[in-house]
């Protein structure tokens, strides 16, 4: 395997954009990325698209060539990857593998979701398709309810509290205020979080991420070649994808995600670093409990210690381990197919010192964790200075 770098990144703001269609979102993110890398569409040798449910949300299949041709990328392989909320993380992992193996020298990876054209009940139904539709979903489970059951069990086994969950929401909303591209730039208080209406007990409105439109893109090249296009290449030091059961009731212990543990272990080994070395991270906070479990599965804290760690302020911008300085899925927004690559764009901006008001001081080694469904897919990526 040869070293691979991210040569360029670009994304749209996240939000509800009634006048924008799916294709225009990818085109905006892709064009920003190519421009950032001083690369023309004809130089792109393959296009990898992460998208969860375009066919359900907007009625369009065959999405990868549908959008790549609009970007001016012709003739070359153009493929869509679907792994629920880890769709673009998975697209990125496979694009990395192709560049690392020597197959391609210039690959564009994008992620997109256009969700807000559907009413919330229909969005809930489409998202439920990432669960086991022959069992848990047929019984009336929704995605918030699957994570609610994880939260209940985590509370029972480790004493995690509603205040611990709310601390994640309050922190990520505070971070999102500093992000000009965030969907919901709004400070919330602990009391607001705790008294919001229930979605699936014990999760309330502010425990849940947002329904958003948006797209993100990164350009991959062999590390040596990337230097010809940018003076700020960002090295992909480690990346791994792992899988587990789709159905929550098939898992031995729902308070931990084995796919996260396996992907993290492989990514740490590849990068030659450990959890203590990671300076900052973008974690998949689709629900507040998911960020707490991720802290534990990534080895940032011991099992069961995620809640108190959040409440201590350690994960704040000024804390020892800043988590989701972008605002996370909670405040930045969660256009599901775009999220994995968007997390990488956020890491790239930090490492390049281009994160504006979000800029962190310790910014040379960052980790992104992208989770699909209730843990059936996970992609962990470690980026650093080239």
């Amino acid at each position, binding site marked *: 395997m040869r070293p691979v770098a991210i040569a360029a990144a670009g994304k749209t703001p996240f939000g509800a954009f009634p006048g924008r269609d799916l294709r225009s979102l990818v085109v905006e993110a892709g064009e920003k990325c190519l421009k950032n890398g001083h690369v023309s569409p004809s130089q792109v040798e393959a296009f990898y698209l992460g998208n969860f449910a375009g066919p359900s949300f907007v009625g369009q299949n065959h999405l990868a060539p549908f959008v790549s041709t609009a970007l001016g990328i012709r003739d070359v392989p153009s493929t869509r990857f679907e792994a629920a909320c880890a769709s673009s993380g998975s697209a990125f992992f496979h694009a990395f593998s192709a560049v690392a193996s020597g197959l391609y020298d210039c690959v564009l990876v994008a992620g997109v979701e256009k969700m807000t054209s559907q009413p919330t009940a229909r969005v809930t139904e489409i998202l439920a398709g990432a669960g086991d539709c022959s069992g848990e979903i*047929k019984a*009336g489970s929704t995605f918030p309810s699957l994570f609610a059951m994880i939260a209940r069990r985590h509370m029972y086994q480790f004493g995690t509290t509603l205040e611990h969950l709310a601390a994640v929401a309050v922190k990520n909303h505070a971070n999102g205020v500093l992000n000009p591209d965030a969907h919901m730039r709004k400070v919330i208080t602990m009391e607001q979080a705790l008294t919001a209406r229930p979605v699936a007990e014990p999760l309330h409105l502010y425990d849940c991420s947002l329904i958003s439109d948006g797209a993100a893109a990164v350009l991959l090249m062999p590390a040596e070649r990337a230097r010809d296009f940018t003076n700020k290449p960002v090295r992909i030091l480690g990346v791994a994808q792992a899988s587990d059961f789709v159905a929550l*009731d098939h898992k031995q212990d729902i308070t931990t995600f084995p796919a996260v543990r396996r992907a993290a272990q492989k990514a740490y080994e590849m990068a030659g670093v450990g959890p203590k070395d990671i300076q900052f991270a973008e974690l998949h906070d689709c629900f507040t409990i998911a960020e707490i479990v991720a802290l534990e599965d990534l080895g940032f804290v011991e099992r069961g210690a995620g809640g108190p760690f959040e409440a201590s302020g350690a994960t704040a911008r000024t804390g020892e381990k800043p988590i989701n300085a972008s605002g996370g899925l909670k405040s930045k927004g969660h256009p599901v197919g775009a999220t994995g690559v968007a997390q990488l764009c956020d890491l790239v901006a930090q490492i390049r010192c281009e994160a504006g008001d979000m800029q962190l001081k310790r910014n040379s080694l960052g980790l992104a964790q992208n989770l699909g469904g209730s843990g059936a897919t996970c992609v962990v990526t470690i980026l650093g200075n080239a």
Partner: protein
Amino acid sequence: MIGTIYTETVVYLAPEAFAADVPYQVAIVTLQDGTRVTGRVLGERVTIDDRVEQVELRDGIPYFRRVA
């Protein structure tokens, strides 16, 4: 069939197919043979470790009720 509540939630926001049932309780139940299933809870709300018995099977989905 008798089982124990492994985890549970009460759903307030549901897809259209289940909208008429809101709020309803969903639980993962550990059955006596150790296997787990996801089902609905009828009647009295349950919490983790409560004992339940299956009272119905509708469209392959078990419905449970609390037992003393």
